[in-house]
């Protein structure tokens, strides 16, 4: 399974350059988000990697290859979920580097500090979004699930931008983290595990029924 995760990372080498550009652009375009900026960028660019990995697989018709090799389907499915954590870690590191280097170069003095807990929450966000998207991807393939994917992606980020204004609720990051408390964060983590587990099970079921 490590090989399958490695594959998703390896085939997206070129996307890394694009990710760098996106992080750079978002750093300025989304400055209104204040201290939530790193969370938003890590989530958005991390999810982009999830989409691109599916696009590459479909472009090369790789499902036919992996399903002809002695690779159980559950490993193919699980690798896509595991790779999400790698993407988030990579994008978090990228955001941290850019947010550190830019102020040193005299650009982007107002960029907030990148915190580890934000990367952790971003992992949850990307895993949550991927849990919605991956069953569709495994059932329909990248091209046929693309419209639904765009709806999930743009819908989630629009909701995240609009809801605080509608509800008139925008706490500081510290208040947001402290406001949850261990019990709430524990429950959120348990819910995430449940959602990811359920999503994995549905993905595996749908992928097993797919023909190549």
């Amino acid at each position: 399974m490590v090989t399958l995760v490695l594959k998703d990372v390896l085939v997206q080498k070129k996307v890394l350059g694009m990710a760098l550009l996106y992080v750079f652009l978002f750093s300025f375009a989304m400055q209104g988000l204040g201290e939530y900026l790193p969370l938003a960028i890590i989530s958005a660019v991390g999810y982009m990697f999830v989409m691109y990995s599916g696009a590459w697989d479909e472009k090369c018709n790789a499902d036919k290859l992996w399903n002809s090799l002695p690779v159980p389907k559950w490993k193919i499915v699980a690798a896509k979920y595991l790779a999400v954590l790698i993407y988030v870690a990579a994008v978090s590191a990228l955001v941290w580097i850019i947010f550190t280097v830019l102020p040193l170069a005299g650009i982007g003095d107002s960029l907030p500090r990148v915190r580890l807990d934000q990367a952790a929450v971003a992992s949850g966000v990307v895993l949550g979004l991927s849990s919605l998207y991956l069953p569709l991807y495994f059932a329909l393939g990248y091209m046929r699930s693309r419209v639904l994917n765009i709806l999930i992606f743009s819908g989630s980020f629009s909701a995240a931008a609009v809801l605080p204004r509608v509800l008139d609720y925008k706490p500081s990051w510290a208040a947001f983290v402290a406001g949850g408390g261990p019990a709430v964060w524990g429950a959120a983590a348990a819910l995430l595990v449940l959602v990811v587990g359920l999503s994995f099970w549905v993905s595996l079921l749908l992928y097993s029924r797919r023909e190549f």
Partner: protein
Amino acid sequence: MTAILELKDVSKSYSGFSLERVSFSLEPGYIMGFIGPNGAGKTTTIKLIMNLIRLDAGEIKVFGLDSRRYEQEIKQRIGFVYDESHFYENLTITEMSRLIAPFYRSWDWQIYKQYVDRFGLPERKKLAQCSRGMKMKYALAVALSHGAELLIMDEPTSGLDPVVRSEFLDILRDVIQDERRSVLLSSHITSDLDQIADYVTLINGGRIIFSKSKEELWEEYALIKGEKALLDSGLRPYVVGLKESQFGFEGLVTNKAEAQRIAGSRAVFERPNLEEIMLYCLRGKANGHSGA
């Protein structure tokens, strides 16, 4: 001896096409040419063997094992080459091999390297920059690097120019000299199989027309040329496919010995190649000329 590959009454339906009760078997150490026109059901049959699509009915056994129940075990012992490359185009040959190798318990890097050198594959070149012929040779190198006992090839030569096709076939002929290996090679280019196939299975419209050894085919079928009057002297029931002209006829007869007895010296008999057998069998059926 247990057949290395056995299909029994295999059926699969799509809208507009169905594979109907397909049965054939391949013994260890032999090469089977799986021939038929485009859309005959060759790729569907191969996909069923590889478990890429689900069976509607029937049974497929590979190495004597149920193809679905023992899928992983079977795939460890199979090498495959498809009609199109399914490798990541943005990776180099070496990178791609590093991704594939860990899945095979018997992957041998030394053997792989030997094939890479022998086929002249540029290891550091991205697959996107490789020609179609190169990609096919690479697929063959991968298929041969883990001690596969059964090679499954779906139209590996289609789309290759004649020079590369001939080179690919030379390589193939060379590597399958090892009689431990069995090969199922599908192609609509029958000349590819004239030299190398031991057995030939003809499929058309989702149905198996015949599955026989090449010797059986040569014994059973013959090309015949003669005057039209000869057809009505008891020969017609043996004619599988026929082309009639003003001056005479030429066609393919089954039960060669009986046809020769009937025609005597009034007809010329020749040994047909696979293409002629395929064309006459299919044309005969299509045009309703057949008497067989």
